[in-house]
């Protein structure tokens, strides 16, 4: 169909104001202005930077990564010696950050669910305890909490020769937490294989029980049997193969503990603070998620004859998880980010060993800041991809 073009027909020259009032022209103009300003600022900063670097007699670039760092790191998950390169320091820092963050995420999720369910308890006292737990922890700074655990708790622990001990296996003192380290012996691999077999068997059992239930209506106590298989089979194999596992026990030798595995007090304080602080946020997410499922759902399930436990499992939790998982995952992201506060108490995480020590020593501020930010950004991006994917698969189908 022929459309009459309004406004500026071709062939007639347009006045400047008419031209400036065109929507498309304005759009291009605005964008051009913004782009020019950003480029100009970037250029200005770049010139300043090169002048600054010249004045300090430095050159930009990643050559320093291969040179030896020369300082020592108090505790690390990945092996490290003082002669290793800066790039190795970067990796060691990432390892330490991920170590504390992953353990914290696991514990904070469990504790958060526990507190969130306490908060929903019909028992007024229990719900109030949970409410005040959440309020107190959310309204004081995390850094203060980390310092509190470090300075007021873990630093005040007794000296090694007066350690708090648990069954003479675990020792807690102002040098850290000491525990037995497992030393696998000859043939321990068989037990490890048995663990894998048990996991597979439990899974198969669950699938089979579900199938049988759907096919015949008969129920099978898959949970308890599965639990039995999961722990029983490896234990049986372990005993049959002659218990091929010994422990390296930590023991007091002189002024300190030798042997076993240990984590420094800074790790314990950081872990505890992260777990407790974030569990408050997790609890709120859990509470809000379960509250978001309307009471009518429970009533409908009850009126169909479902018991409370089954109602929770089949009706409430599947719906609540849609509301709980997104804030839970962004909370995990915050745990990773907040683990950078380790620097305040000397736990050698990425920021502490790389952004502070390495930066001070090498002076390569731009490169190092960029590398550290790159790490956090890639963690953040992968988590948000996972979150988007989850949201996509659980989205309720509506018109």
């Amino acid at each position, binding site marked *: 169909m022929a459309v009459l073009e309004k406004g500026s027909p071709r062939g007639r020259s347009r006045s400047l104001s008419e031209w400036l009032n065109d929507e498309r022209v304005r*759009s291009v103009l*605005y*964008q*051009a202005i*913004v*782009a020019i300003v*950003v480029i100009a600022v970037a250029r200005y*900063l770049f010139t*300043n*930077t090169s*002048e*600054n*670097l010249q*004045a300090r007699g430095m050159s930009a670039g990643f050559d320093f990564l291969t040179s030896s760092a020369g300082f020592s790191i108090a505790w690390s998950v990945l092996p490290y010696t003082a002669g290793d390169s800066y790039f190795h320091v970067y990796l060691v820092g990432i390892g330490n950050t991920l170590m504390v963050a992953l353990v914290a995420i696991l514990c904070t999720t469990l504790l958060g669910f526990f507190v969130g369910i306490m908060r929903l*308890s*019909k*028992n*007024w*006292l*229990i719900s109030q*305890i949970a409410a005040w737990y959440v*309020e*107190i922890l*959310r*309204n*004081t*700074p*995390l*850094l*203060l909490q980390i*310092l*509190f655990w470090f*300075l*007021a708790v873990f*630093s005040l622990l007794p000296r090694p020769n007066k350690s708090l001990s648990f069954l003479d296996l675990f020792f807690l003192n102002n040098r850290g937490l000491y525990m037995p380290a497992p030393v696998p012996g000859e043939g321990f691999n068989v037990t490890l294989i048995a663990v894998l077999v048990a996991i597979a068997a439990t899974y198969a059992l669950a699938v089979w029980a579900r199938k049988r239930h759907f096919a015949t209506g008969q129920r099978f106590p898959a949970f308890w049997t599965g639990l039995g298989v999961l722990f029983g089979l490896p234990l049986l194999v372990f005993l049959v193969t002659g218990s091929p596992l010994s422990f390296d026990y930590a023991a007091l030798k002189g002024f300190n503990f030798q042997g076993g595995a240990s984590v420094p007090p800074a790790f314990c304080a950081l872990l505890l603070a992260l777990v407790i602080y974030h569990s408050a946020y997790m609890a709120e997410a859990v509470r809000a998620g379960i509250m978001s499922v309307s009471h009518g759902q429970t009533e409908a399930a009850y009126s169909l004859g479902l018991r409370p436990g089954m109602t929770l499992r089949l009706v409430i939790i599947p719906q609540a998880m849609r509301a709980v998982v997104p804030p839970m995952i962004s909370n995990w992201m915050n745990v990773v*980010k*907040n683990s*950078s*506060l380790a*620097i*305040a108490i000397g736990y050698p995480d990425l*920021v502490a060993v790389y*952004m*502070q020590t390495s*930066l001070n020593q090498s002076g390569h*501020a*731009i490169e190092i*800041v960029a590398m*550290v*930010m790159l790490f*956090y*950004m890639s*963690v*953040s*991006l992968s988590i948000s991809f996972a979150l988007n994917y989850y949201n996509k698969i659980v989205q309720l189908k509506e018109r």
Partner: protein
Amino acid sequence: MAELTHTDAVFRPKPSQPPPPNTVGAIGWLRKNLFGGPFDSLMTIVGASLIAYFAYALFQYGVVNAVWEADSYRECLDATKGAGACWAGVDKWMNNYLYGRYPDAEQWRVNLGGLILAVWLAPFWFPKVTHKIMVGVSAVLTFPFLAAQMFLGGDAIWFMQGMVAVALTLFAAVWLHVIACYTGYKSLGDALVRLTGFADKDDRLHKYVFLVAFGAVWFAALIFQANWDLKPVQTTNWGGLFLTLVISGIGISTALPSGVILALGRRSKMPVIRVFCTAFIELFRSVPLITILFMAVTMMPLFLPVTLNPDKLVLVIVAVCIFAAAYMAEIVRGGLQAINNGQYEAAQAMGLNYWKMMTLIVMPQALKLMIPNIVGNFIGLLKDTTLVSIIGLYDILLMVRASGQDPKWLGMHTEPMLFAAAVFFVICFVMSKYSQHLERTIGGGYGRR
């Protein structure tokens, strides 16, 4: 059909009876909420004993065994064998926790600055005052200049002097406006026009009345502030809770406007603007604040001209503002997404252009929805401001640590930290409860503005 006639049986409802005594009142409440069954009762007992134990321990530590008068931590320890708190040390250090190393003789300036801000914003809670938005905007835009001059002292450049005079003028204007509102005028402008007898003159003349009045007061304020003789106080001496509030206050007041601009940019249809805004927001949201602070103090000096040599506090404030703006942008974006598309369409159908649509229709509704998140963000920022202690600014947290390293008070960590925790808890808790109150009173979009 049914019609009433006088032969009908008259329905007289039975009188309500009181409920069974064990289901209402204190006993009913206890049965329902604490002792609903054996398991419930057990939990109640366990919970109550835990609370009693902690309350008792805290009371013993904080009150019964506490030491209120001592000259060193050693004295405290000797007096209590470590079983009680040493509040004496907290008391001795209190001045530092609040003001850092700001000279004692000059601390009245900090107090006065805080008082001025409180008085400036007080009209928010006066029901009769109109134009409350303008009251807030005037404080946010000009108070920082007044405060900077008061806190820094020394000689100011001409621009600062002018802005300080503007701030003083607006402060006076706000309170004259309050008086006008409570003496029967619609606003300060209304009062000025009517009192000078310009009410019956042409409307176009009114602005000259305002200009003359403003100019006269501004000039008086300029002369008034020129006579100030405030001793200079370096920012390196700023500290304690004062510094924490300065940094977070600036962060909070810049976060909202810059967050709104970034959020609009991210939702813009223009790709260049959208890409820049999205990149900015995502970059600064995905990294921890401490890395942004490190960036500010190590990388930013490299970016700036050699001659500039910027103040560390300024760099930190810039970093905090960037961080807060990125977070606020996402909150604003969430609020904008919650606004029904019909509102945009209605505004466009009425012929409003983009900016009018945003400022008159969309933003007022979106901001209301965002209140809880905005306040949550403010609380988060106030807590996160403690991170500046890691890069060596003497905020309340670093002062707390310093007091435990003071030779006289060596090892005194718990008490100052409990004090700081209490300070933060009170501020944040009050803020969050107030936001919940606001949320209830403002209502879901149809309440009063």
